[in-house]
Structures are given as structure tokens and as C-alpha cells.
């Protein structure tokens, strides 16, 4: 539409460079003999998955706002599929159909750039779920069915949907790529700082490998990275002030880590190790994208409050006259 935003361009270059250099690092590590065979296989499986996943994530964001929106919609549907098959909600066909319809309509509202409808869909879909569940005339388990339906629509339809809406902004691709990059880096920072400084467990019952040191290290490093990126995406705007840049970075890091913990809680409650097998070496899509879920709304509304989202773009592209 308007050409690739410079920040989006440089992030893409960075990702390609990382993917190109990683095998060399693996080979160098392998030469030193420090990699056990199982660790080596694991690293290569994960790397191969990233080689497939990274273009699938980045390309739709760069091509057009509609490809980005459809991409987010597909991700929402696949996440719902994993969640519903892990919880057993998929057996409730009517509820599943409403959740899927809700996600499709959210995607349409984004594509149409119709914010009022995007907002309305929360209450409308929730009402539809509560009502449709009546039709089976089986009160036993009613609350569980409805609650799981609302829970999954809220997480994968509403929360993830905010990423799609972001694409309507002229800086959308730059915001989205920065968020994606920082959320992934947030995980890596937490892992590395946890290895270096992690002593006290963060939430041993929920996720035994996470440490407070890791969380704090990630918060500091991610904030620095994200603040820098936002500074270049929206220079001289209302968010380009130190206090807002820091707040945005912290918010991204914290909501990212919470998303991770939320999915860990869900997995522990269900008693499953992974939510799916979609991505070799990572588990399901949800195991990979869990940290994104709450980052979307947090970033959208913080940035939206100061700058608006897509205010200078045509609205109601399909439904308007």
C-alpha cells in the first residue's frame, strides 16, 4: 500500500540474518563438542520449524493489511482448534460453531475497518454462546460448556483479534513486527537471564522453570528493545516520550510473560504436556504463541489512546457506501 515501513524492513532483514547465522553457530558449537546428540537434534528441529514459521508470520504482515488480517484470523482459528480438542469442547458442535463464526466475524470487522462492530462482537458472541447452549436442553454441564466457549472466544477471537485490527494503521506492519519480535525476544531474554541470575522460582506450581531473575532480566532487556523500536516507528508523537516508551516496553514484557503463565496453567489443569503437535520441536501453535495473547490488546489500547489506530485510513471499506 504505502511501501514497507523502514522499521518493518529492518526487522525483516534482522530476522533473515538471524536465520542465516544460526546454523553457523550450531556448527561452531558442535565443533567444540559441547552439544549432546539429543540437544543437537532438538536445536535443529526447532530451527527448521522457525525457518518455516518465520516467513509464514512475517510475509502476511508485509504484503498487505488484508493478508495480515486474514493471517491473524487463521491463527485464531487454529488456536481455537487446539484449545477445543485439548479441553473436549470440540464435541459441543453448536458452541464450537458459534466461536468459529465469532472469530470469522471479528476478522471481517478488522478487514472492514469497522471498529464499532469489532467491539460489538464481544457482547454479541458471548450472548450467542450462552443462548445457543440452551438448545441442547441438557442443563448438566451447561456452565462448563458455556464458560469454555466464552473463555476461548475471549482469548483467541477478541484478544488475538487486536493484532488484526492493528494492520489498519499505516504503521501497522512496523508495530506488528516489532511486537512479534519483542515477544519472541522476551522469551529468549527470560530464558537467558534465568540461566544467569535465576534463583527464586517465579511460580513453581504453574511453570517450574521460570525464575524471578529471568522475569526481571526479560523486562529490562525487552523494554529497552521495544522502546527503541517504538521511538523509530512513531518519532515525535505523543508516545515518543521516555515515560510512555518505558511503560509500553514493560507492559509488553509483563503481558507476554503472563500469557505464557496462563497457557501453563491451562496445560497443568488439563494434565497435558503440549496443546498440540503442529510445530515440530515446539508443540502446538498455542505453546508457541501463548505469550502473544494479552500483548495484543495491551499494545493496541495504549498506543490507540495516544495515537489512535488507523484514524487516517478509510473506514467501513466493505460495508460503507
Amino acid at each position, binding site marked *: 500500500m504505502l511501501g514497507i515501513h523502514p522499521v518493518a524492513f529492518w526487522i525483516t532483514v534482522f530476522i533473515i540474518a538471524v536465520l542465516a547465522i544460526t546454523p553457523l553457530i550450531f556448527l561452531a558449537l558442535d565443533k567444540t563438542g559441547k552439544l549432546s546428540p539429543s540437544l543437537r537434534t532438538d536445536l535443529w528441529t526447532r530451527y527448521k520449524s522457525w525457518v518455516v514459521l518465520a516467513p509464514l508470520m512475517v510475509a502476511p504482515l508485509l504484503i498487505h493489511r488484508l493478508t495480515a488480517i486474514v493471517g491473524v484470523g487463521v491463527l485464531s482459528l487454529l488456536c481455537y*482448534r487446539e484449545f*477445543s*480438542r*485439548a*479441553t*473436549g469442547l*470440540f*464435541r459441543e*458442535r453448536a458452541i*464450537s*460453531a458459534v466461536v*468459529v463464526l465469532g472469530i470469522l466475524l471479528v476478522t471481517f470487522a478488522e478487514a472492514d475497518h469497522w471498529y464499532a462492530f469489532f467491539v460489538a462482537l464481544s457482547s454479541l458472541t458471548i450472548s450467542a454462546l450462552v443462548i445457543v447452549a440452551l438448545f441442547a436442553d441438557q442443563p448438566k*454441564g451447561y456452565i*462448563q460448556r458455556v464458560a469454555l466457549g466464552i473463555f476461548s472466544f475471549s482469548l483467541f477471537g477478541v484478544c488475538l483479534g487486536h493484532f488484526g485490527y492493528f494492520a489498519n494503521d499505516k504503521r501497522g506492519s512496523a508495530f506488528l513486527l516489532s511486537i512479534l519480535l519483542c515477544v519472541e525476544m522476551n522469551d529468549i531474554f527470560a530464558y537467558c537471564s534465568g540461566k544467569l541470575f535465576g534463583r527464586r522460582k517465579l511460580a513453581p506450581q504453574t511453570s517450574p522453570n521460570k525464575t524471578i531473575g529471568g522475569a526481571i532480566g526479560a523486562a529490562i532487556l525487552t523494554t529497552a528493545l521495544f522502546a527503541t523500536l517504538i521511538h523509530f516507528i512513531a518519532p515525535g508523537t505523543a508516545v515518543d516520550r521516555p515515560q510512555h516508551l518505558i511503560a509500553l516496553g514493560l507492559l509488553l514484557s509483563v503481558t507476554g510473560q503472563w500469557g505464557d503463565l496462563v497457557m501453563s496453567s491451562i496445560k497443568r*489443569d*488439563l*494434565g*497435558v*504436556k*503440549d496443546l*498440540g*503437535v503442529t510445530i515440530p520441536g515446539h508443540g502446538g501453535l498455542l505453546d508457541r504463541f501463548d505469550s502473544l495473547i494479552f500483548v495484543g490488546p495491551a499494545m493496541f489500547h495504549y498506543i490507540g489512546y495516544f495515537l489512535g489506530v488507523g484514524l487516517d485510513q478509510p473506514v467501513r471499506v466493505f460495508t460503507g457506501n
Partner: protein
Amino acid sequence: MDEWQYKPAGDHGLKPQESLRSLKRETGLVASVTQAAWRLAVRGYLRGYHRLRVDGREHLPAQAPFVMVANHTSHLDALTLASALPWRLRQSAFPIAAGDVFFETPAMMLFSAMMLNALPMWRKSCGPHAMKRLRERLIGDPAIYVLFPEGTRSRDGSLGRFKPGLGMLVAESSVPVVPCYLHGAFEACPPKGKMPLPLPIHLRIGPPLQFADVANERAGWQDIATRLETAVGALRERNTP
């Protein structure tokens, strides 16, 4: 307050290909739509092209579990039997199909799972373990199985010997087995033929048999096979036009 019960899909944690050929595969929203569309198309085809006539629908049990068995002469057989089931039972119905034909290539697997809702039976290595799994699912789900105890399609249209394996599914259980006879399918779609011919097919459904008092061991299984073979054969005799 009751504890919430989560029951992940039977095939949870399996890779896509393993899941398609798993005996624990469970239909999701997408497959339920493709299966319904396939069912409507097949019903239309059988009624229009083969003028399908079904007698004895009243013998079908009102709900799962039960097993439909029939003579096997063509690839239309499982489709015809499944299409005779009422709409509300469609999602419980699983044709039991030869693994080496229907679950060998990814494309066939996808078709068998997403359209037919078939479960695989591996003819070469069909041990008691697989039969036990099938039996558990039949009673536990509960499910409806459509199967052909001859084990393969008849090459000349005659009724072959019933294999005793079927007995492992129903011996010492109250699961009804519904004998059926398909008339005309061999002529309409012979094993060597390429295109199905527009000839009539007639499905006759007989009264169900139960085998609660038959021992779940080799002699019992053989007894069940013989009795069902007789029941299906009797439907053929009555069926001569």
C-alpha cells in the same frame, strides 16, 4: 459443586497422519461439515443413479451402539449401508475399512477420515489388540460400525465365509448386530468394472441379533460368524426378485 471434567480428543497429541489413521480419531467441526456434505451427495447419487430401495429400516436400533454387517461386493456397499442410517446417528457411524486400501496414502487417509469417517482395519496385522480397541470404542463411545465380515469384496457376487474376528467385537455384550443384504451392488459396480452402471440397488435390513450369552473366546467368535452368515444368507434368499 461438581468438578469440571476435561476429556481431550482421543487422538490428542498424535501427528496429523497418525491421527487420521488412529482408531481413537474424533471428528471435529470441519470434518463434521465435510462428512455431512459427502453424505448428502452420496444419498442423492444412490437414489438418483441407482434408485436405491431400503427395506426393513424398522430393524435398526434407535441408538448406538450397534453393528451393521452385510455381504461385500463393491465399493458402494459401505456408502449404501451408512446412508441408510438416520441423520441424527450419522456422527456415530464408522465404516470399518481395509487399512491397506483406505489408509495407505495421505490423500486416501484424508478422504477416508474427512468424508467417510472410516476406521482402519489392518488385514495383515489385525491382532486382538486392535479388535479390543475397536470393541472399547464401540461400547464406550457408543458407536455404530459398518463392516463386512467376509474381509474382502466377493469376486463373483456370491456370499463368502464370514471371518470370526467380528465375534471379538460383540461376544458377551448386549450390542445388537444388524444383518443386511445388498442386492444389485455387484452388477452396478463389479470389482473389475471401471464406472458404476446405472443399475438398481436394493438393501434389505434384517432383525438384529445379540450375543450376550456367547463366550468371548475362539469357539464363541466362530459361532457368531456362522449365525450372522446364516442371517445374511437368509436375507438373500428372501430377496430374489
